[in-house]
């Protein structure tokens, strides 16, 4: 139930796990319509990590919700394998222990508490959280909570993970720590990942490809392939260079 999706070749001609084509989305608000996305396109091959960066309010979250089928596009098409969301705030349930939070998706699919715990326990062990199994979220640090939140999304067993600024709420030190952690986890548990972030460095360190979005209405400005070996150091000159390229795409003078 929580196995990685079956092995698929990673050639260019393989079917995309996510394909967003010329999508537009407009919201009606009291102060008039707001166009979040205009002709946004994005694709992700199976097991590819696509990092999406853009200024605040450029429709990144809308993009993820379209991929997760929480919204429908006004125009264009969205084709995606089933995707599970990891929200920006951890949104762990305060009355559940770490292990029960991690297994929430299994419970909502009908697994018993014992089955869900049995499935989650080895992961908590792997994530270094074994001794916090029965701890409630309020007593966990921000980094731990984010790891549980990620595990909860992972255990939903969907081939696509939609991560919405997963580390934005963490302090700088914990954030760097978690970026390294996520890179290692995804190396051993490859998934198709759409990682939305406003942190260009995070995008370059984690992504196989970086998609740079324009301000609202959002669309792709440029795409940068990141072929650097992992683990990547943020001080590595090639990482720095790609970061500058992405920033230039955002229109930021570095």
């Amino acid at each position, binding site marked *: 139930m929580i196995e990685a999706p079956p092995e698929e070749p990673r050639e260019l001609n393989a079917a995309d796990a996510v394909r967003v084509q010329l999508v537009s989305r407009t919201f009606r608000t009291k102060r008039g319509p707001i166009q979040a996305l205009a002709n946004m396109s994005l694709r992700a091959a199976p097991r590819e990590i696509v990092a999406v960066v853009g200024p605040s309010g450029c429709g990144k979250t809308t993009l993820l919700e379209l991929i*997760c089928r929480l919204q429908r596009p006004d125009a264009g098409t969205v084709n995606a394998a089933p995707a599970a969301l990891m*929200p920006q705030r951890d949104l762990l349930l305060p*009355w559940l222990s770490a292990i029960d939070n991690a297994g929430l998706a299994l419970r*909502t699919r009908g697994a018993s508490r014992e089955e869900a715990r049995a499935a989650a326990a080895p992961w908590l062990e792997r994530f270094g959280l074994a001794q916090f199994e029965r701890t409630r979220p309020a007593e966990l640090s921000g980094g731990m909570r984010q790891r549980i939140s990620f595990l909860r999304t992972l255990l939903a067993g969907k081939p696509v993970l939609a991560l919405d600024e997963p580390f934005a709420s963490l302090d700088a030190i914990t954030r760097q720590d978690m970026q390294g952690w996520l890179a290692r986890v995804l190396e051993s548990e490859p998934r198709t990942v759409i990682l939305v972030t406003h942190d260009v460095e995070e995008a370059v360190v984690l992504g196989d490809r970086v998609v740079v979005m324009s301000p609202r209405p959002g669309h792709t400005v440029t795409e940068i392939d990141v072929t650097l070996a992992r683990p990547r150091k943020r001080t590595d000159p090639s990482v720095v260079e790609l970061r500058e390229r992405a920033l230039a795409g955002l229109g930021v003078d570095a």
Partner: protein
Amino acid sequence: MSRVRQALPAALLIAGLIGIWELYVDLHGSSFFLILPPPHQVARALFDDRSLLWRSFLVTAEEVLLGILVATAFGALFSVAIHFSPTLRRAVYPLLVASQAVPVVVLAPILTFWLGFGLLPKLVVVTIVSFFSIVVATTAGLAAVDPDLLKLMRTFDAPRLRTFWHVELPSALPSVFSGAKIAVAVSVIGAVLAEYLGSNSGLGYVILVSEPQLLVARGVAAVVILSLFAIALFSLLSLAERLALPWAYRTRDAVPS
């Protein structure tokens, strides 16, 4: 130790108020005692009439406790129903608000006519007056679930009922307790009014028959017992909430790094 210290401000305030009350009544002379008896007379009535007051208290306490229980059960169920059906909510809510405006004074005689002088009509009155606060609090609690959390559940393919069971219901439980706590005070008033208007027992009945007999201190003694009962009930509910929902009460605990 700290419990004693926490209770100190309330104890001092009450002692001060009793002192002012005593002084005020004494200044007006003994004829004023028939309007407002001094605290020492009330204390004497509490002691002298203890067996009558105790028996009456048991009657009223039963009405209030059962009434809150019934109101909480029905209120929670009703809230769930209108949470699932906005149509039902729109249909019933105005009626619910209107029902709160019907004075118990009008209602009680009809209930007595239908249901007699026993426990049942009081139970109905207490339930009616407490129902509203429980429904309002619970509905708010059910609706207050983070919309992002509901989105997350949808990407987990969670069926509606499982989302309710695993997410919405537990997050609304503290609100059910809040509603029940608000209901405590009104339910005591409801029970007393219901007794006032048609019964032959209970603290409300004691108040009703004491004043014409010029036993005003006994009536005030009954009020004192009612107040203490409300405080006890409120504290009991807070305690139950802490025990049942420890996660809703967290702060100041050590946070591991």
